[in-house]
């Protein structure tokens, strides 16, 4: 099995889906000749041409709305938002339109579209190139949200997203685009939207994370393993709809739950995970449900020291594991 980067996995998924289905096209800012500002679509313009790789006007809501309209006309758009921080102009189209279409039309109109969104901090991007946006969108019934943390899942989930008849947002941990590498199978495969993944089995404590934090949590788990703590890492990978069974089953085994995300604390995604554990896993707990997150401030600061202070990392995750184990 070849070892590739996370962004190469995404690129392969798009290449294969473009080749498989002539209805698939890619639209976004600089996705054509430039191959995307992160190079996710590199080489695809040369291969598939300007009809299928569309450099959009610099206007996010219309990227989304044109995607919605094209999806309703039975095409399969992959819409790229250049940075998660710039998705808010499209909020109305995603929340009020794309995600509500199937329900509001009594099941008549589907919106089979993909919304690719590079997100997250730690890349020196400051307040407006670092944001995590999952909390806003995971409150939207009708939308699906996936967050891969490995090349294997990145490729398999993106391919599933293209084939799904619903709007699927793919949150891509951009710090991991090249930092995260891994093996992928030769040939065709998909990863189903929905099930979480046990990234590391363990008996003592459950760590729930996704995206870059799942990658870091796995590192932290290896560190504490040397101290005799057997941590289980659950990579949630699909945030909407949430795999509640995987969460409860893990807590049932370990009795302790630590939730990690880089988004800010209050009303963050971890609150929902904690609520699921409180409701369905209460009797298995032998400690408080803890959250390790970014602090409640308006953004990830630019200056290095402040940025690193904001972001959870393998060391702070290991420390939070030790702390909860000591409860």
């Amino acid at each position, binding site marked *: 099995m070849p070892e590739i980067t996370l962004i190469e996995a995404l690129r392969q998924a798009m290449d294969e889906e473009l080749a498989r289905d002539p209805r698939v096209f890619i639209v976004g800012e600089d996705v054509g000749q430039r191959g995307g500002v992160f190079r996710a679509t590199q080489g695809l313009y040369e291969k598939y041409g300007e009809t299928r790789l569309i450099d959009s006007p610099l206007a996010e809501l219309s990227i989304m709305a044109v995607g919605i309209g094209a999806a309703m006309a039975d095409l399969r758009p992959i819409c790229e938002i250049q940075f998660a921080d710039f998705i808010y102009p499209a909020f109305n189209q995603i929340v009020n339109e794309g995600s509500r279409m*199937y329900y509001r039309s009594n099941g*008549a109109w589907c919106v*089979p579209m993909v919304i690719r969104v590079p997100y997250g901090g730690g890349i020196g991007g400051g307040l407006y190139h670092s944001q995590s946006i999952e909390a806003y969108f995971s409150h939207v019934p*009708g939308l699906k949200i996936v967050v891969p943390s490995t090349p294997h899942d990145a490729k398999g989930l993106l391919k599933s997203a293209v084939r799904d008849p619903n709007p699927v947002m793919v949150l891509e941990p951009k710090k991991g685009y090249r930092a995260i590498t891994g093996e992928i199978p030769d040939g065709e495969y998909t990863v189903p939207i929905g099930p979480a993944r046990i990234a590391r089995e363990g008996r003592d404590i459950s760590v729930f994370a996704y995206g870059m934090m799942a990658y870091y949590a796995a590192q932290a788990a290896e560190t504490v393993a040397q101290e005799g703590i057997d941590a289980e890492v659950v990579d949630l990978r699909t945030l909407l709809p949430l795999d509640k069974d995987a969460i409860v089953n893990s807590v049932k085994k370990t009795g302790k739950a630590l939730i990690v995300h880089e988004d800010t604390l209050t009303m963050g995604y971890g609150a929902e995970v904690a609520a699921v554990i409180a409701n369905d896993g209460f009797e298995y707990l032998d400690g408080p449900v803890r959250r390790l997150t970014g602090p409640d401030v308006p953004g990830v600061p630019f200056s290095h020291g402040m940025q690193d202070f904001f972001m959870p990392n393998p060391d702070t995750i290991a420390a939070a594991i030790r702390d909860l184990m000591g409860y």
Partner: protein
Amino acid sequence: MAVNSTLRPAMRLAESTLREMYWFMLLSRRLDERAWAIHRQGRIAFHISAIGQEATQVAAAFAINRGVDYVAPYYRDLALMLALGMPPEDFMLSLFGKHDISSGGRQMPFHWSYKNLNVISGSAVVTTQVPQAAGLAFAIQYRQRCGMVDPADATQPRLALTCLGEGSTSQGEWHEGMNWAGVHKLPMICLVQNNMYAISEKTDQQMAVANVADRASAYGVPGVVVDGNDVLAVYDAMAAAVERAYNGDGATLLEAKMYRITPHSSDDDDRTYRSREEVEQWKARDAIPRFKQYLIGEGILSQADADAYDARARAEVDRAQQVADSAPMPAPEEALGDLYAPSDAD
């Protein structure tokens, strides 16, 4: 009879088609009046009226390939929907919150959705349909460019028509949708129904130019103003826009001027912001009697025909209401359905 192609498009319409257009204007008016009546009786919660806009809407429907070309309408498009093929009883079902085709009772009335007629579902958020219509038009162009369809195949959608009010053109969504249509030379028609009001606000509170159509040059598309109470003039303007779209020449911004005869909706009191004299003046320009007189004058419609149409419209409205009256309410649990499309919906 050979069709004289030098005549303006409306003059090429068959007499039976002209009578049909009159019929839909009349049917829309009578249904609309019935909705006001049953609202006054407290039988329905809400009504928002198309009175004064029927001529434009029916002309627009008849100019496109009805039921095939994509339509992204707005809430006031009752006459447009009827002319496209919406069953009148479906409108009545929606007024009562019953099992209408559009949304199964989930949406308020006037949120049209008819997949079989290629009418896409709309929300209550004004103008969201305009950039979506650009997406529909984009899909048409994409299919043609990829060789998936023959551009001349009239069984396939060849343009996207979208409608909205003049106030709604102040939204950024309108700009972004028009810009896409212009940049990509899309087969799209944006039909602005300028009824001079956005609830209470007048046109000069929405924009610093006299016409919405004046903005067309910013998008590289033609901007056309037409008398929205002149059904044949609207038809002519629409026909030109349709021809542009079908020929791959791009989008058109068409602004039909008219007047909102009724309050904004059943929840509005328009006496708080406009005079009765003004309303009466515009009522005198009503497009329906105007078109009727024209048809009678041309010998296309007899007074007896007109009387028969009146009776038929009344019967049709009664029948539609009867169907809706006797239909069951949706089961409360239907609130939980259709969260996600199943995978085999693809």
